[in-house]
């Protein structure tokens, strides 16, 4: 069945250093990179960030086409932001048409924002492309675990994500089954305008919801039968350990961040 062949998340299998880094290193690295994009004040800074990102992508072996796919979904957002910035930034107008005017500062800001957004997307998709979803949730759990002392349910959050990932294919199967059953009884999911189609989804969504609850009840019982009682006193089979490459990555990260700040201080355009 085709619906079973889906890959979870958008992991791009590979054997590069980037793939092998501890998920925690990658998570922190990604966050730092995203922050650095907001620290950057000029185009020279972006050029530097861009070159670093390009090198990283090259090392990871993820084809550029793959990375660019992530852009498609947010293309509208990028264009929209650019246009708003283009027209709405006050400054000395170089072009006027009725109430619309474009200022020099507007062009500058529009490009600035577009580049920032594109790099944000590239940076974060590099993380999800090179890290398995399971490793990612594990990494998040460990990174957040110190916060559980102040009441953040880090284990529960990670467990929820793990279960969500596990049950995506199961629920897809279920959707497929319900869809076929309802089609056999004359339900129509394919024709009509947007509103009619949305209405057509009700006979699909209601049974899907009910069955999701049933699955949840079953799973909860199975988990209890296997002695699950929350995160306290739990051990993990695959412990995580920082390796040499993680240490090197940490040093590079610090240097990178320092460089970004330094470039921000330079008196260039």
């Amino acid at each position, binding site marked *: 069945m085709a619906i079973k062949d889906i890959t979870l998340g958008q992991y791009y299998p590979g054997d590069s250093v980037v793939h092998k880094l501890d998920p925690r290193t990658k998570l922190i690295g990604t966050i730092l990179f995203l922050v650095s994009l907001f620290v950057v004040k000029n185009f020279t800074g972006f050029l530097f960030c861009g070159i670093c990102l390009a090198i990283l992508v090259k090392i990871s072996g993820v084809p550029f086409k793959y990375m660019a796919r992530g852009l498609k979904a947010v293309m509208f957002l990028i264009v929209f932001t650019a246009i708003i910035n283009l027209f709405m930034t006050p400054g000395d107008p170089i072009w006027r048409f009725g109430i619309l005017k474009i200022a020099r500062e507007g062009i500058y800001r529009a490009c600035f924002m577009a580049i920032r957004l594109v790099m944000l997307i590239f940076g974060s998709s590099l993380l999800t492309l090179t890290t398995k979803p399971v490793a990612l949730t594990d990494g998040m759990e460990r990174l957040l675990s110190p916060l559980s002392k102040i009441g953040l349910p880090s284990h529960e959050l990670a467990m929820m994500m793990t279960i969500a990932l*596990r049950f995506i294919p199961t629920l897809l199967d279920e959707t497929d089954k319900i869809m076929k059953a309802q089609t056999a009884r004359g339900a129509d999911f394919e024709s009509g305008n947007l509103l009619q189609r949305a209405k057509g989804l009700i006979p699909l969504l209601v049974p899907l919801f009910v069955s999701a609850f049933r699955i949840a009840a079953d799973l909860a019982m199975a988990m209890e039968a296997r002695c699950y009682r929350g995160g306290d006193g739990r051990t993990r089979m695959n412990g995580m350990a920082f390796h040499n490459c993680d240490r090197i990555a940490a040093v590079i990260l610090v240097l990178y961040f320092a460089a970004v700040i330094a470039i921000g201080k330079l008196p260039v355009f």
Partner: protein
Amino acid sequence: MSKETVIQLKDVTFSYYVEDAEGNVTTNNDVDVKHSEKRMALDGVTLDIEKGSFVAIVGSNGSGKSTLAKHLNALLLPSSGEALVCGMSTADPDNTWEIRRRCGMVFQNPDNQLVSSVVEDDVAFGPENLGVDPAEIRKRVDNALNAVGMYEFRKKGPHLLSGGQKQRIAIAGVLAMQPECIVFDEPTAMLDPSGRAEILKIIRGLHEEGKTVILITHFMEEAAQADRIIVMDKGRPILDEAPAALFAHGEKLQELNLQMPFGASMAAKLRDLGVDLPEGIITAERLAECLCR
């Protein structure tokens, strides 16, 4: 009795109130209705299960066999009476986790009992919950996966496996907790014949290794492999015998809508026609053997 008992049920009852279509439980101000809506899923069950035995529990839908199974590892607590697992009462919350470790359970739906999207992580789930040392977990997971013949699938996602394979992973998950007793709650009900045969072979293997096995099923052919069959009806065990003796009362089973295994029912029919056959024939193979003699 000289043999050690693993599970002891003493006059266990389990009752619940039925909800009407609006989800309301009939309340106290109408006492009569309340009584009529109270259902007894288990109605005074008393039985002992010996260590190392292979017990099948059969019965038609609604006979209480699944409810009974859930009493064996404290998923449900008796409304009255007492359930003892390895001498510990399920009613005491302090015992709950030790009972669940010692008495593992495999459920009917292979999809709804796997937790992780990687097979070996799922098998590790039980021992992880018990706080076992990581190196020891690794060893247990490998052993459990080998025991069910799924070692080469350890890195796969469960959604890529067949129903029978998923059920084998579920069994491995229970084995990794090193239980003394495993309850199988209709483990083959959602599987195809080949998956069913696989699971049954593993169950028999576990019994031979000395684990106590309790198999809830409505396939008589499967129950026939046990050394003791308990037939449930309306929340009570009504027959409790070795398979050969049980299949001697064919009419009684018929009344309960339970189908005899092919070998046993054929032997009974042939005996009625005057064919001289020894007692205790259960399987078709044994029947053929006796007929050829």
